């Protein structure tokens, strides 16, 4: 008798090592190429630092250094003044994939999956073999800890190479140092650009950055006010998918379906819970753990057919019009700034807020497409601009009334920097790489409304500016023309040139009514032109030489 096939197969079934996992998913994690890897490593470390500082209510001051070591190898160090990490947790946080605190909560934060920084550590290990170096201190009274860590790629467990107490001048905070294979280039998708944009969306943070060219860039904070701390909320029934529902039912401590619905979800009271159960054809006293798949499908249907009030939106903390404008003002030099924060709205049971800011004029090029800066939960999005909901919203907005040129189906052109920011408990992206915001109609609608409001303000500025410059231009035209007209008229009439020029200058100064409105003049010229066109059209031919 031969062995059952299942036993044969079982021999092949084993844990996939994290190294393998990384290799297969590196594009999802932001390590597609060497240039992007550099950005991703910096981004993961900076995101963590900002989140930690805000949670601890400390005004962030982050120091980033990138040193080129030759052969496409770079040493990256990121140091913050956050709360630090307790000794016990250091190895797990930095050297174990999928370990984190944020994945289980519904709360507005930069990171989500607990994969970012450990993936960076793994990338360093796989490309240069060097361990991650970590410094951490939680208070002046406690000692500073120094670790050198590897990841055991078979077991997905931290491998501690060095663990010691050291002297560190920092009172509290974390520093991480990684050696990686990378490629440094300037441009829109560079670390430089990422940090500059981070400074715009995080005006409460000071960022000090030394790039591989040994240029130090300091982005000082524009505000001493920490953003309000976002509150944690329970999921809203509309935002929960089948898989998550199954997991929730399995893990809950509630003993009936009724109490499961009222306790694990927001906006579900006893009445609503009963209605859901009625519509789903389920008993309110069923045990959650005993629900089978067909039941759960019915439950989802019941939720869909029940009117449930939208989730509360006070869990969202937008940047705010005032601070967003300040942030933009300090990093983009322009003539006109404005910012719009919309009221919260909800997509799929998930609350979100859209904010838009713009900076117009200055030295920005007038004939190129406007520069778009996109943010999700204050994190700059540098890739996949074309696929982003923000791009679609901009294209669908008519910018011509606001003084920009725009051809059908494209981004407008003009000396403009446009900021679109999505803040949400769970920002939705088009893919796991978190590079482009998904096209939910609710999100696009809010973006367009915010763009239109900012556009209107821009339009009134541009038009006012145009009026003033038209007036000046008119006066200067006459000032330049008068000597010429005086000269020609003098040759023609024999009257003194100076006398004529003097008389006309006086007229220009005293009698502004001679300077007819530009509009009127324009009208006459237009009519002239129309006449001419009509003439050519009718004649159909050129005649007379």
């Amino acid at each position, binding site marked *: 008798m031969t062995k059952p096939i299942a036993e044969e197969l079982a021999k092949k079934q084993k844990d996939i090592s994290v190294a393998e996992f990384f290799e297969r998913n590196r594009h999802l994690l932001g390590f597609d190429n060497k240039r992007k890897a550099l950005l991703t490593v910096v981004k993961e470390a900076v995101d963590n630092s900002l989140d930690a500082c805000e949670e601890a209510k400390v005004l962030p001051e982050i120091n980033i250094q990138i040193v080129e070591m030759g052969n496409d190898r770079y040493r990256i160090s990121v140091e913050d003044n956050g709360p630090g990490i307790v000794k016990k947790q250091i190895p797990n946080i930095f050297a174990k994939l999928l370990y984190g605190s944020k994945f289980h909560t519904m709360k507005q934060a930069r990171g989500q999956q607990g994969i970012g920084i450990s993936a960076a550590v793994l990338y360093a290990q796989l490309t240069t073999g060097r361990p991650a170096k970590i410094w951490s201190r939680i208070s002046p009274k406690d000692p500073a800890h120094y670790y050198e860590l590897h990841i055991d790629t078979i077991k997905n467990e931290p491998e501690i190479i060095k663990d010691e107490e050291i002297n560190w001048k920092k009172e509290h905070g974390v520093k991480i140092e990684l050696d990686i294979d990378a490629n440094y280039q300037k441009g829109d998708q560079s670390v430089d650009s990422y940090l500059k944009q981070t400074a715009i969306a995080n005006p409460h943070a000071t960022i000090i950055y030394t790039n591989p060219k040994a240029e130090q860039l300091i982005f000082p904070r524009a505000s001493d006010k920490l953003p309000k701390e976002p509150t944690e909320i329970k999921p809203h029934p509309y935002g929960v998918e089948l898989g998550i529902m199954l997991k929730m039912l399995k893990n809950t401590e509630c003993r009936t379906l009724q109490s499961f619905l009222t306790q694990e979800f927001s906006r579900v009271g006893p009445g609503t819970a009963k209605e859901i159960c009625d519509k789903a054809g389920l008993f309110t006293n069923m045990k959650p753990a005993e629900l089978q798949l067909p039941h759960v499908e019915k439950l989802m249907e019941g939720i869909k057919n029940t009117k449930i009030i939208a989730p509360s939106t006070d869990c969202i903390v937008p940047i705010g019009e005032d601070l967003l404008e300040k942030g933009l003002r300090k990093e983009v030099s322009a003539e006109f700034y404005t910012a719009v924060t919309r009221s919260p709205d909800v997509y799929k049971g998930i609350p979100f807020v859209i904010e838009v800011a713009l900076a117009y004029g200055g030295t920005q090029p007038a004939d190129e497409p406007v520069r778009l800066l996109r943010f999700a939960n204050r994190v700059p999005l540098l890739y996949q601009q074309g696929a982003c909901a923000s791009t679609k919203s901009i294209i669908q907005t008519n910018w011509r009334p606001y003084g920009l040129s725009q051809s059908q189906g494209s981004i407008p052109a003009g000396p403009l920097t446009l900021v679109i920011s999505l803040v949400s408990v769970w920002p939705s992206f088009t893919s796991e790489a978190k590079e482009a915001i998904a096209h939910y109609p609710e999100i696009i609608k809010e973006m367009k409304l915010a763009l239109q409001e900012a556009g209107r303000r821009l339009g009134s500025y541009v038009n006012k500016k145009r009026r003033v410059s038209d007036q000046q231009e008119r006066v200067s035209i006459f000032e330049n023309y008068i000597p010429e*007209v005086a000269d*020609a008229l*003098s040759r*023609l009439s024999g009257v003194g040139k100076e006398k004529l020029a003097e*008389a006309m200058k006086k007229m220009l100064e005293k009698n502004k009514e001679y300077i*007819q409105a530009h509009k009127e003049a324009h009208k006459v010229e237009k009519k002239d032109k129309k006449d001419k066109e009509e003439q050519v059209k009718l004649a*159909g031919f050129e005649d007379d030489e």
Partner: protein
Amino acid sequence: MTNKKPKETIEELGKDLAKEVLSNKPPIMDVPIRALSNVTFDRKTQTLQLGNKKLERNFFNAGHSKRFLQTLEVAAASKELLEVGKHTSLRDVFYMIKRTIPNTKINIVDEQTESDDAIEDLEVLTGLSREQLNINANKMGSVAGHVIVEDKGDELDWSKMGSGGWSIPSNVEEIKFKKVKAKYVIYMEKAAIWERLHEDKFWDKQNCIIMSSQGQTTRGIRRLLQRLSQEHKLPIYVLADFDPWGFYIYSVLKYGSINLAHMSESMTLSTARFLGITADDIEAYGLKKNLIALKEVDMKRLEQLQNYEWFKDNKNWQRQFKLMKTLKAKAEIQALSGRGISFITDKYLPEKIRKEDWID
């Protein structure tokens, strides 16, 4: 036209404007509008006439100031020419006034059409023709025949000018006719056809004058034709392509053009007749195989011609237009060469004139 001397008329324009300025009034020129909206067809004289509509050109109007300056500059340039008694071309005038205004990037004129327009403005403002302002167009025409003229003291015999013929100057006002021995004048739009007729000594055999230009009829040629028609009572026959262009050349010669409506009196030829090529010629002289298909733009022009007021009630012309529309084709004069190099000289023209086969 005024009886005053051109120089004085121009100076007067300047003095009037200077007077306004010195009495603290904004300088304004009232320029008659040279556009379709101000042109009418006068049935009595059978010419296009400029109406009374005027455009106020105010220097202190941002939309007018440049054109105002251009017109003044042209006037000043013309005054200088008149003072020294020299003539110059339209192109020269463009260069005479072209320069950049100090402190700006603005050129007084950027293209010759701008100075040309300013010259036409000056014409309608003063009632003087361009030639009276000592500004000439390029000469572009040839003539041959048994005619002797005097030009600037030189005596010229149009029958002894070699293969090129006499080249018609742009200003023919001063020319005196000493001897004119001809029964009629044929004017043609193609220089190549003129050369054919000249080589065949057509003017000698048929006792006529042959005249041509290349394409558009210049003012000098129109004026010369008018003088031959008025002073020597010669019939004028137009030989042009069977296409909307050819018809239009005839139309401008006979009735005037919108641009020059202000000088219709000295330009139009109410006696001009269209000799060919006509739709009937195509049948009669077997030109069918040399037809060229009409393009869409030709069709459009044809429709415009059909609606011209002076053609509207003309049955003969409407018939030609209709026939061209049905044929959907045009024919060049050169199509006649298909019947033999000198077919035009030996057969076509003598026969047409003998049979009085023309359209009026």
